[in-house]
């Protein structure tokens, strides 16, 4: 059987994908990468669209929001998403929510495919808008994860790939949960 260029590219991507899953466990703890923001910033202007239309950050007042900016074409984003899913599971029932906000040209279709590929079922489908992201000026590059307090203010951020379900990160985020 002749090995085509397409097969080689597909094989290469598969190999990269396989390695990427293994490397996800090596990413540093989000807790140690976290950057503190002494001047909290409102992210209410950030545009999000879900399957049923616009979603506003104000809908999540009273909860700690872990807002992950990502894209299905961004390899580090793909690698860290399973740990965000596990984080969402760990935070279930607590006043907190994990919101992955995708920046894909294909919008929610790309997100749906990616979640299905990885078997992720506990994360919301949300698409962002690149021009809006630049307008609200929330940090360079993807992935970036912004930790927004119960009042809607960004208090912490993590730029780049991180592990989101290790003991240090769970303890750190638990300490940020609003009082019951």
């Amino acid at each position: 059987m002749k090995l085509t260029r397409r097969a080689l590219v597909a094989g290469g991507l598969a190999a990269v994908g396989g390695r990427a899953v293994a490397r996800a466990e090596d990413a540093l703890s989000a807790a140690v990468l976290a950057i503190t923001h002494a001047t909290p910033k409102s992210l209410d202007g950030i545009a999000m669209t879900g399957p049923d239309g616009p979603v506003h950050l104000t809908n999540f007042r009273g909860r700690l929001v872990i807002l992950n900016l990502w894209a299905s074409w961004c390899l580090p984003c793909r690698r860290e998403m399973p740990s965000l899913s596990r984080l969402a599971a760990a935070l279930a029932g607590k006043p907190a929510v994990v919101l992955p906000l995708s920046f894909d040209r294909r919008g929610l279709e790309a997100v749906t495919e990616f979640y299905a590929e990885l078997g992720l079922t506990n994360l919301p489908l949300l698409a962002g808008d690149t021009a809006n992201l630049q307008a609200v000026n929330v940090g360079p590059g993807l992935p970036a994860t912004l930790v927004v307090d119960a009042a809607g203010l960004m208090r912490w951020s993590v730029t780049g790939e991180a592990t989101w379900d290790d003991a240090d990160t769970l303890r750190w985020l638990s300490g940020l949960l609003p009082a019951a």
Partner: protein
Amino acid sequence: MMNAPISRRHMLVACAVLAAVPSAFAQEATEQPSRRFMMEDAATGNVVDDDIMLGKVSLLYFGYTHCPDICPTSLVQMADVMKAMGDDAKKVQPIFVTVDPARDTSAVMREYVKSFDARIVALRGPAPYTDAMVKAHKAQYEIQKPGGDDPLLYTVDHTASIAMVGANGALLKRFPYGIATAEMTAAVQAAVKAIPAAP
């Protein structure tokens, strides 16, 4: 004079000297970014380099004195670890590096760290030197200027974890903000025990 400002010429001369001396951390140079640095010790006004960490376990924190809550909490914790270490504290080098050298003069830094623990070495340097040290230790910071009339009215976003560097210069661990002091102390004690005995 104790509080003489550090000049660019001093830095450049010291840099040339440092470059000619084999680094204690050279063994990891091929795998990790160099962690050599050169900064002003706010207590003396002297230029110091990574030799102050040599043979000790160092706790390194990047922050600034106008930091409203995270930095004081972290420095209190650093001081608590030093107290808990007892005699072994002399094998630990706590370091506070300002990411805001414009406002954090040596006099400000000196007084600031004293209020936590006089053993904390306060380092400051010109922005490029600070940037190099921050980058080498995989930390980040960014000045947030809100605009307005007062150019000195700003805050700095910065990595909140405390880095622990081993006696050989290897970055051993980063303690996240909010970690229990007992847990941090135990890790520092273990690192101190692992310091090779002097020949």
